[in-house]
Protein backbone atom coordinates (compact mmCIF):
# COMPACT_ATOMS: atom_id res chain seq x y z
CA UNK A 1 0.00 0.00 0.00
CA UNK A 2 1.21 3.51 -0.76
CA UNK A 3 2.42 5.39 2.28
CA UNK A 4 0.33 8.40 3.27
CA UNK A 5 2.36 11.42 4.33
CA UNK A 6 0.55 14.43 5.76
CA UNK A 7 1.67 18.02 5.20
CA UNK A 8 0.22 20.63 7.55
CA UNK A 9 -0.84 23.99 6.19
CA UNK A 10 -0.86 26.72 8.81
CA UNK A 11 -1.88 30.31 8.05
CA UNK A 12 1.41 31.65 6.67
CA UNK A 13 2.90 28.33 5.54
CA UNK A 14 4.83 28.74 2.29
CA UNK A 15 6.48 25.46 1.44
CA UNK A 16 3.57 23.06 1.92
CA UNK A 17 3.14 22.77 -1.87
CA UNK A 18 6.80 21.90 -2.43
CA UNK A 19 6.74 19.42 0.45
CA UNK A 20 3.71 17.65 -1.08
CA UNK A 21 5.45 17.56 -4.44
CA UNK A 22 8.60 16.07 -2.93
CA UNK A 23 6.51 13.39 -1.20
CA UNK A 24 4.82 12.49 -4.50
CA UNK A 25 8.16 12.40 -6.35
CA UNK A 26 9.45 9.95 -3.75
CA UNK A 27 6.46 7.70 -4.50
CA UNK A 28 4.13 8.35 -1.56
CA UNK A 29 0.70 9.90 -1.33
CA UNK A 30 0.73 13.48 -0.05
CA UNK A 31 -2.20 14.23 2.28
CA UNK A 32 -3.02 17.86 3.03
CA UNK A 33 -3.69 18.51 6.72
CA UNK A 34 -5.35 21.71 7.89
CA UNK A 35 -4.06 23.42 11.05
CA UNK A 36 -7.53 24.08 12.47
CA UNK A 37 -8.85 20.56 11.95
CA UNK A 38 -7.99 17.98 14.60
CA UNK A 39 -7.77 15.14 12.09
CA UNK A 40 -4.74 13.17 10.86
CA UNK A 41 -6.59 11.29 8.09
CA UNK A 42 -4.73 8.01 8.76
CA UNK A 43 -1.34 9.36 7.72
CA UNK A 44 1.80 7.32 8.36
CA UNK A 45 4.05 10.36 8.83
CA UNK A 46 3.85 14.15 8.88
CA UNK A 47 5.90 16.99 7.40
CA UNK A 48 5.70 20.41 9.05
CA UNK A 49 6.65 22.77 6.22
CA UNK A 50 8.54 26.04 6.07
CA UNK A 51 7.01 29.48 6.10
CA UNK A 52 5.84 31.98 8.67
CA UNK A 53 3.02 30.26 10.52
CA UNK A 54 0.73 32.77 12.24
CA UNK A 55 2.97 35.55 10.97
CA UNK A 56 5.78 34.42 13.32
CA UNK A 57 3.91 36.43 15.97
CA UNK A 58 5.33 36.19 19.51
CA UNK A 59 8.08 33.74 18.45
CA UNK A 60 8.48 31.56 15.38
CA UNK A 61 6.33 28.47 15.86
CA UNK A 62 5.01 29.54 19.28
CA UNK A 63 1.38 29.84 18.20
CA UNK A 64 1.44 27.02 15.64
CA UNK A 65 2.32 24.66 18.46
CA UNK A 66 -1.18 25.15 19.87
CA UNK A 67 -3.00 24.55 16.56
CA UNK A 68 -5.71 21.87 16.90
CA UNK A 69 -3.89 19.48 14.54
CA UNK A 70 -0.64 19.81 16.51
CA UNK A 71 -2.00 18.12 19.63
CA UNK A 72 -2.61 14.98 17.58
CA UNK A 73 0.77 15.22 15.88
CA UNK A 74 2.65 15.63 19.16
CA UNK A 75 1.00 12.58 20.73
CA UNK A 76 1.40 10.48 17.57
CA UNK A 77 5.07 11.53 17.38
CA UNK A 78 5.55 10.44 20.99
CA UNK A 79 4.11 7.05 19.94
CA UNK A 80 6.65 6.74 17.13
CA UNK A 81 5.06 8.40 14.10
CA UNK A 82 7.80 9.97 11.95
CA UNK A 83 7.70 13.78 11.78
CA UNK A 84 9.98 16.00 9.73
CA UNK A 85 10.01 19.72 10.55
CA UNK A 86 11.61 21.91 7.91
CA UNK A 87 12.62 25.51 8.74
CA UNK A 88 9.46 26.91 10.40
CA UNK A 89 8.54 23.26 11.02
CA UNK A 90 11.81 22.81 12.95
CA UNK A 91 10.94 25.88 15.02
CA UNK A 92 7.50 24.39 15.74
CA UNK A 93 9.04 21.05 16.82
CA UNK A 94 11.27 22.89 19.31
CA UNK A 95 8.36 24.98 20.62
CA UNK A 96 6.33 21.78 21.00
CA UNK A 97 9.22 20.21 22.98
CA UNK A 98 9.51 17.29 20.57
CA UNK A 99 13.10 18.45 20.05
CA UNK A 100 15.34 20.29 22.54
CA UNK A 101 16.67 23.83 22.17
CA UNK A 102 15.31 26.77 20.19
CA UNK A 103 15.88 28.72 16.98
CA UNK A 104 16.60 32.42 17.34
CA UNK A 105 17.47 35.43 15.20
CA UNK A 106 20.43 34.95 12.90
CA UNK A 107 23.61 36.17 14.55
CA UNK A 108 24.25 38.76 11.82
CA UNK A 109 20.56 39.82 11.67
CA UNK A 110 20.34 39.24 7.91
CA UNK A 111 17.95 36.91 6.19
CA UNK A 112 20.11 34.31 4.43
CA UNK A 113 19.01 32.70 1.19
CA UNK A 114 21.62 30.58 -0.53
CA UNK A 115 22.59 27.07 -1.52
CA UNK A 116 24.26 25.48 1.47
CA UNK A 117 26.53 22.50 1.79
CA UNK A 118 25.76 20.17 4.71
CA UNK A 119 27.29 17.03 6.10
CA UNK A 120 24.92 14.25 7.15
CA UNK A 121 26.16 12.94 10.49
CA UNK A 122 23.24 10.74 11.51
CA UNK A 123 22.17 8.54 8.59
CA UNK A 124 20.19 6.21 10.86
CA UNK A 125 16.92 8.14 11.19
CA UNK A 126 13.55 7.60 9.55
CA UNK A 127 14.34 10.59 7.33
CA UNK A 128 18.05 10.14 6.51
CA UNK A 129 18.68 6.42 5.98
CA UNK A 130 19.21 7.00 2.23
CA UNK A 131 22.43 8.88 2.98
CA UNK A 132 25.83 7.59 3.99
CA UNK A 133 27.60 8.69 7.14
CA UNK A 134 29.43 11.92 6.40
CA UNK A 135 27.77 12.42 3.00
CA UNK A 136 27.88 16.00 1.79
CA UNK A 137 24.63 17.35 0.36
CA UNK A 138 23.61 20.69 -1.13
CA UNK A 139 20.28 22.21 -0.07
CA UNK A 140 18.80 25.70 -0.21
CA UNK A 141 18.79 27.50 3.14
CA UNK A 142 16.53 30.51 3.64
CA UNK A 143 15.86 31.87 7.10
CA UNK A 144 15.99 34.91 9.33
CA UNK A 145 15.69 32.99 12.60
CA UNK A 146 17.62 29.81 12.03
CA UNK A 147 20.30 30.03 14.68
CA UNK A 148 20.08 26.88 16.76
CA UNK A 149 20.74 27.45 20.47
CA UNK A 150 20.62 25.21 23.52
CA UNK A 151 22.48 25.12 26.82
CA UNK A 152 25.97 23.54 26.73
CA UNK A 153 24.77 20.38 28.47
CA UNK A 154 22.07 19.78 25.85
CA UNK A 155 24.57 20.45 23.06
CA UNK A 156 27.07 17.99 24.58
CA UNK A 157 24.33 15.39 24.96
CA UNK A 158 23.15 15.84 21.35
CA UNK A 159 26.72 15.49 20.19
CA UNK A 160 27.58 12.48 22.34
CA UNK A 161 24.40 10.59 21.46
CA UNK A 162 24.78 11.18 17.72
CA UNK A 163 21.62 13.28 17.54
CA UNK A 164 23.10 16.03 15.40
CA UNK A 165 21.71 14.93 12.04
CA UNK A 166 23.46 17.50 9.82
CA UNK A 167 26.01 20.27 10.20
CA UNK A 168 26.73 23.30 8.03
CA UNK A 169 29.87 23.03 5.93
CA UNK A 170 31.93 25.85 4.37
CA UNK A 171 30.30 28.64 6.31
CA UNK A 172 27.57 28.75 8.90
CA UNK A 173 24.67 30.80 7.48
CA UNK A 174 23.13 31.94 10.77
CA UNK A 175 25.53 31.50 13.68
CA UNK A 176 23.94 28.21 14.71
CA UNK A 177 25.78 26.72 17.70
CA UNK A 178 28.19 23.91 16.76
CA UNK A 179 27.16 24.42 13.12
CA UNK A 180 23.93 22.54 13.77
CA UNK A 181 21.61 22.38 10.75
CA UNK A 182 19.44 19.44 11.84
CA UNK A 183 18.77 17.37 14.96
CA UNK A 184 16.66 14.35 15.87
CA UNK A 185 14.89 12.77 18.81
CA UNK A 186 16.34 9.69 20.50
CA UNK A 187 14.29 7.27 18.42
CA UNK A 188 15.33 8.93 15.16
CA UNK A 189 11.71 9.36 14.10
CA UNK A 190 11.43 13.12 14.67
CA UNK A 191 13.90 15.27 12.73
CA UNK A 192 14.11 19.06 12.51
CA UNK A 193 16.16 20.69 9.76
CA UNK A 194 16.69 24.35 8.91
CA UNK A 195 17.67 24.01 5.21
CA UNK A 196 15.08 22.81 2.71
CA UNK A 197 15.30 19.27 1.31
CA UNK A 198 11.91 19.74 -0.40
CA UNK A 199 13.44 22.47 -2.62
CA UNK A 200 16.18 20.14 -3.87
CA UNK A 201 14.29 17.30 -5.50
CA UNK A 202 14.43 18.18 -9.21
CA UNK A 203 17.24 19.34 -11.51
CA UNK A 204 15.01 22.00 -13.05
CA UNK A 205 14.27 23.95 -9.88
CA UNK A 206 16.81 22.93 -7.26
CA UNK A 207 20.58 23.28 -6.85
CA UNK A 208 20.72 19.47 -6.62
CA UNK A 209 18.40 16.53 -6.09
CA UNK A 210 20.09 15.79 -2.75
CA UNK A 211 16.91 16.54 -0.79
CA UNK A 212 14.88 13.71 -2.25
CA UNK A 213 16.68 11.28 0.06
CA UNK A 214 14.74 12.60 3.06
CA UNK A 215 11.50 11.45 1.49
CA UNK A 216 12.75 8.15 0.03
CA UNK A 217 14.31 7.41 3.44
CA UNK A 218 10.88 7.71 5.01
CA UNK A 219 9.37 5.22 2.54
CA UNK A 220 12.14 2.76 3.24
CA UNK A 221 11.66 3.25 6.97
CA UNK A 222 7.88 2.75 6.73
CA UNK A 223 8.18 -0.50 4.80
CA UNK A 224 10.23 -1.89 7.67
CA UNK A 225 7.68 -0.87 10.30
CA UNK A 226 4.91 -3.39 11.03
CA UNK A 227 1.59 -1.58 10.57
Amino acid at each position, binding site marked *: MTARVGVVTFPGSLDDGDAMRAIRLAGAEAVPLWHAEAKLHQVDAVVLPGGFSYGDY*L*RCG*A*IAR*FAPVMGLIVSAARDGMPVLGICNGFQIL*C*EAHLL*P*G*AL*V*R*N*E*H*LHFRNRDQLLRVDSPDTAWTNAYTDGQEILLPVKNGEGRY*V*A*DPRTLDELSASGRIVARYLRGNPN*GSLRDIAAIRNEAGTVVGIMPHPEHAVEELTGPSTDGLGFFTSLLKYLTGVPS
Partner: protein
Amino acid sequence: MARVVVDVMLKPEILDPAGQAVVNALPRLGVSDVASVRIGKRIEIEFAGDSEPDVERAKEIADKLLANPVIEDFTVRVEE
Protein backbone atom coordinates in the same frame (compact mmCIF):
# COMPACT_ATOMS: atom_id res chain seq x y z
CA MET B 1 -9.07 48.08 35.05
CA ALA B 2 -6.01 46.48 36.60
CA ARG B 3 -3.82 44.72 34.16
CA VAL B 4 -1.10 42.16 34.46
CA VAL B 5 2.17 43.07 32.80
CA VAL B 6 4.52 40.34 31.65
CA ASP B 7 8.08 41.30 30.76
CA VAL B 8 9.94 38.77 28.64
CA MET B 9 13.72 39.00 28.24
CA LEU B 10 16.23 36.79 26.49
CA LYS B 11 18.30 34.92 29.08
CA PRO B 12 21.61 36.68 29.80
CA GLU B 13 23.61 33.95 28.07
CA ILE B 14 21.59 34.18 24.84
CA LEU B 15 23.10 36.54 22.30
CA ASP B 16 20.84 39.47 21.38
CA PRO B 17 22.06 40.63 17.97
CA ALA B 18 19.21 43.17 17.68
CA GLY B 19 20.36 44.79 20.93
CA GLN B 20 23.94 44.83 19.65
CA ALA B 21 22.77 46.54 16.45
CA VAL B 22 21.23 49.27 18.60
CA VAL B 23 24.52 49.67 20.53
CA ASN B 24 26.34 50.00 17.22
CA ALA B 25 23.91 52.72 16.06
CA LEU B 26 24.18 54.85 19.21
CA PRO B 27 27.47 56.59 18.25
CA ARG B 28 25.54 58.10 15.33
CA LEU B 29 23.49 59.92 17.98
CA GLY B 30 26.69 61.06 19.64
CA VAL B 31 26.25 58.48 22.41
CA SER B 32 29.41 56.49 22.94
CA ASP B 33 29.20 55.35 26.57
CA VAL B 34 26.57 52.60 26.26
CA ALA B 35 28.07 49.17 26.86
CA SER B 36 25.04 46.99 26.29
CA VAL B 37 21.45 47.07 25.06
CA ARG B 38 19.13 44.09 25.35
CA ILE B 39 15.68 44.05 23.82
CA GLY B 40 12.71 42.29 25.36
CA LYS B 41 8.93 42.28 25.11
CA ARG B 42 6.28 43.82 27.35
CA ILE B 43 2.93 42.07 27.22
CA GLU B 44 -0.19 43.50 28.88
CA ILE B 45 -2.98 41.14 29.88
CA GLU B 46 -6.48 42.19 30.91
CA PHE B 47 -8.86 39.55 32.18
CA ALA B 48 -12.54 39.82 31.33
CA GLY B 49 -14.93 40.97 34.06
CA ASP B 50 -14.26 42.98 37.19
CA SER B 51 -12.41 40.30 39.11
CA GLU B 52 -8.97 40.91 40.54
CA PRO B 53 -6.14 40.25 38.10
CA ASP B 54 -5.15 36.64 38.36
CA VAL B 55 -1.37 36.68 38.68
CA GLU B 56 -1.09 32.91 39.00
CA ARG B 57 -2.92 32.33 35.74
CA ALA B 58 -0.89 35.06 34.08
CA LYS B 59 2.25 33.21 35.18
CA GLU B 60 0.90 30.03 33.64
CA ILE B 61 0.13 31.86 30.38
CA ALA B 62 3.62 33.36 30.38
CA ASP B 63 5.28 30.02 31.05
CA LYS B 64 3.31 28.10 28.42
CA LEU B 65 3.04 30.64 25.63
CA LEU B 66 4.40 34.15 26.13
CA ALA B 67 7.96 33.09 26.95
CA ASN B 68 10.04 30.14 25.83
CA PRO B 69 11.87 29.02 29.00
CA VAL B 70 14.68 27.57 26.85
CA ILE B 71 15.80 31.04 25.81
CA GLU B 72 13.78 33.55 27.82
CA ASP B 73 13.04 34.66 31.41
CA PHE B 74 9.86 36.47 32.39
CA THR B 75 8.48 38.51 35.26
CA VAL B 76 4.79 39.08 36.04
CA ARG B 77 3.40 42.06 37.94
CA VAL B 78 0.06 43.81 38.45
CA GLU B 79 -0.15 47.36 37.19
CA GLU B 80 -2.84 49.53 38.75
